[in-house]
């Protein structure tokens, strides 16, 4: 049902809206924590010995040289590839990024694929 706005003061609208946005999202934070708390499938905390170990910090790649990048590849694509590889625990191991030429017949592409699999 339509009604006239409660207020047309932009500052008040901003304050009310930002407050509601923060309250809703803070409530979501607690909901997520609650879901994690009641999760029957979560891993049990490891024994004290494991706690003494230093937490994993992604510092392996500190000072790693940037990869050699072939011309024509967008920096955001490099960023996405590097981040995906880093997510699998191989930070800083990207040495070079090249475009694989997909031109040619499907037979040629299939042969390339087979070669890659053999490697």
């Amino acid at each position, binding site marked *: 049902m*339509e*009604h006239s*706005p*409660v*207020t*047309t003061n*932009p*500052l008040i*609208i*901003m304050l*009310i*809206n*930002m407050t*509601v*946005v*923060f309250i*809703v*999202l*803070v*409530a*979501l*934070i607690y*909901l*997520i*924590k609650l*879901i*994690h708390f009641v*999760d*029957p*499938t*979560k*891993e049990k905390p490891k024994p004290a010995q494991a706690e003494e170990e230093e*937490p*994993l*910090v*992604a*510092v*392996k*790649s*500190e*000072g*790693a*040289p*940037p990869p050699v990048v072939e011309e024509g590849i967008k*920096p*955001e694509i490099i*960023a*996405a590839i*590097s*981040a995906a590889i*880093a*997510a699998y625990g191989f*930070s*800083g191991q990207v040495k070079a990024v090249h475009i694989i030429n997909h031109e040619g017949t499907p037979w040629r592409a299939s042969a390339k694929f087979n070669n890659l699999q053999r490697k």
Partner: protein
Amino acid sequence: MEAINAFSVSLQAVWNDSGFSAFTLGNGIMILVGLLLLYMAFVKEFEPLLLGPIAFGCILANFPNTGFFGEEMNVMKAINYGITYEIFPPLIFLGIGAMTDFSPLLARPSTLLLGAAAQIGVFVALGGAMLVGFNVHEAAAIGIIGGADGPTSIYLSTKLAPHLLGAIAVAAYSYMSLVPLIQPPIMKLMTTQAEREIVMKELRQVTKFERVVFPIVSTIFISLLLPPIAALLGCLMLGNLFRESGVTDRLSDTAQNALINIVTIFLGTGTGMTMSAESFLRTDTLLIIALGLVAFMGGTAGGLIFGKLMCKFTGGEINPLIGSAGVSAVPMAARVSQLVGMKSKPGNYLLMHAMGPNVAGVIGTAVAAGTMLAMLK
């Protein structure tokens, strides 16, 4: 003689019914605007999937005498119904949900705060729009551009200011494609080199239980609190549930490929069709485009400021660069955080950390839209 007379009358009738007889300078300008947008979409690759159909719809909307919006039903009118009755934006959200991985957010829920803080841009632009003379409904629809969320912008403007839909959609999608140009200078200006070099701790593993329960619980909570956005948020989370359940691969595949592609074509073309010369060639359009930029910059700055606060309160565990990803241009804004972080320190991978605030931004913008609808509609 009779034949010549009939020929002349027929030719005159063809001319009178043709678009050329009613063609105006405004139509010509708008067709040029459409061609410029086509160039940006297909040559410069600025959001080509959406800007392409929008541009072509804009060209189609400026042919006189087409009868697209006359009494009789036709395909263009049917497409327009999809926008007028808010059918397409929730369907787009269904596909986005099926493509979204909420794991980074579930692993570090505090990043939801960054998604909330980035909404400040929405309200800065709202205030600016009211200052330059827009009414509160129009200002709210313009402000939502700052959320960097195309479907939500279209959804809100259809409800609050349908006459501004074309300008708002073009501004929103244009700036979303320009995120890699708009954000980095602000990020560098607002953060120190030491802050940009912070390496964040690896995220914890998120279980399937959490990934399945989250979309259900959040839909129940937010839809009960803000019913006006139940369609948007419900579709987002339903799509996500298809993805995470593990037993509805076919539905997930359809939602994130075939369905979203079809709806994108209709949404883009329908939005372009609202860009007739009469509704677009106004000073308001230029103001909307300028205010959209203010909104984007404000959102980026808001996220960064909160990122700096979180960095301080966590003793340097949070890299403030992920704050700018709180604007919900997914995944572009997160990639920008990654790029700027990697330029400051090679080997510093922020992408997964930035995806948390990025998807939080989608929820935050929907909540902001719902709150404004509840207040103003």
